[in-house]
């Protein structure tokens, strides 16, 4: 199918005009909802995603609680109108998997031992999807956790890298995701030098995976700065409010 799709223009630019290692325009805002303890909104390309955090709060029913730490619950969900064809609001197998993958990517960041017997709920709602929603959603969810005042070991930023028409590139858009050869979402914290989310599907050689990984690290470092800026803005606003 992919043959007739042009992912690169003659001058080597990508379908949306970017170079291989260029991120899409990103807009992040922390503290966008009034009911949630913490929240964040991200636009990355045409992605529009909100994340919200409730908790820590008592874990009910009791048998789900853990005596030595808090548990996390995470739901990644796509709005019915977020995709080109309307999506049923019931969770798909993909959404169930990603909810788990995202919980796993957030769990190592939270100082869970500070809140035994409690639960933290993390909700990620994709309002518009444009490729790389799990990564953008994760980037927002970490900020929602921080906004909720939950002690974290650090932030992670997440970005998909991959391969299209034989080239390794960063921050795949919908088209590149669909017609490219490989897609590898990565969440990374530069200070801890730690990857908390890593998936890949498609075909890449060992060298290509290494190259993509290196692109991901650079990209997530850039995004990390934007995250910090968004938090700073949030707290400066609050300070002004106080």
């Amino acid at each position, binding site marked *: 199918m992919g043959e007739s799709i042009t992912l690169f223009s003659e001058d080597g630019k990508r379908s949306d005009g970017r170079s291989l290692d260029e991120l899409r325009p990103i807009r992040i805002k922390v503290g966008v909802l009034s*009911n949630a303890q913490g929240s964040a909104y991200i636009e990355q390309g045409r992605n529009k995603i909100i994340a919200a955090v409730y908790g820590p709060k008592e874990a009910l029913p009791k048998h789900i609680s853990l005596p030595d730490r808090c548990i996390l619950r995470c739901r990644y969900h796509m709005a019915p109108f977020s995709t080109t064809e309307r999506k049923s609001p019931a969770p798909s197998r993909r959404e169930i998997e990603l909810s788990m993958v995202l919980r796993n990517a957030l769990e190592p960041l939270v100082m869970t031992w500070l809140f035994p017997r409690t639960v933290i709920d993390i909700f990620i709602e994709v309002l518009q999807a444009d490729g790389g929603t799990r990564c953008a959603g994760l980037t927002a969810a970490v900020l929602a956790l921080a906004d909720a005042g939950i002690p974290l070991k650090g932030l992670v930023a997440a970005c998909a890298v991959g391969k299209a028409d034989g080239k390794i590139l960063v921050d795949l858009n919908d088209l590149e995701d669909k017609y490219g050869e490989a897609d590898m979402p990565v969440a990374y914290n530069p200070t801890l030098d730690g990857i908390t989310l890593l998936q890949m599907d498609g075909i890449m050689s060992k060298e290509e995976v290494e190259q993509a990984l290196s692109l991901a690290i650079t990209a997530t470092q850039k995004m990390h700065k934007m995250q910090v800026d968004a938090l700073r803005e949030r707290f400066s606003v609050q300070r002004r409010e106080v």
Partner: protein
Amino acid sequence: MSITEQRPVISKLEQQELRRLLAENKRIDGRNPLQYRNIRVQLGYVEKAEGSALVELGNTKVLAAVKVGIAVPFADTPNEGILIVNAELVPLASPVFEPGPPSEESISLSRYVDRSIRESKSIDLSSLCIVPGRSVYSLYVDLYILDYDGNLIDASLIASVNALGITKMPKYVVEGQAIKKTDEYFKLELKDHPVSLTYAFLDDKYVVDPCLSEEYASDFTVSMTVKSDDRFCAIQKNGGGMISPRRVIELLERSLELGKELRTVAYRQLTGGNG
């Protein structure tokens, strides 16, 4: 099975305060009893939907988006398009919303919005037929509650009508047995601009456009949807409590007055400010 809901406890103090203020015709957020909160409408919020609107009514945030498709018509209306309204009370919006299949609250909300649009004939469904009995347009109106600070009904109807008001319909052409989507679009025609007015009753007093703490403290609410021609197309009492016939008639009157005003504000962008 419907079960008596457990409302979050609002402190006795807050309840008393609400009642004390109301005795003086005042409200906790400074409004007078018949005043709506500020309304902000952002049209076209979701580019991937054929129509959409993000509506803020005070702190209540509702996103409505319309997806257009084609479908086989229902057997008893072979010449009419299909309109489906669905509301998601996503847990993002409130600690009382839970993930899972639609709750009775969400079903009741979407059915009220559906009735308001359908009975007001805002959309002429018979104009949405492509091939009688075989292919008609389907309009999915999905409501997404993002922040819940009371009065979902009024906000949801405003969001839905705004989203429908800017909906662009893909043109289809019939080629023999096949129906093909073209690159052309036409505007969905909006025949009416209904607004819903919701009143919350506390003891013998009532306020319009209740915020969440007013909703929780109230005995019940009454919603009334008014068309542009001042006729009613939907009424619903929600929650327990009793209302006297005299009060109902008073609310009808109020709704005519308030409806005009609300319609002008809510659909300003659609109508170019002429309501």
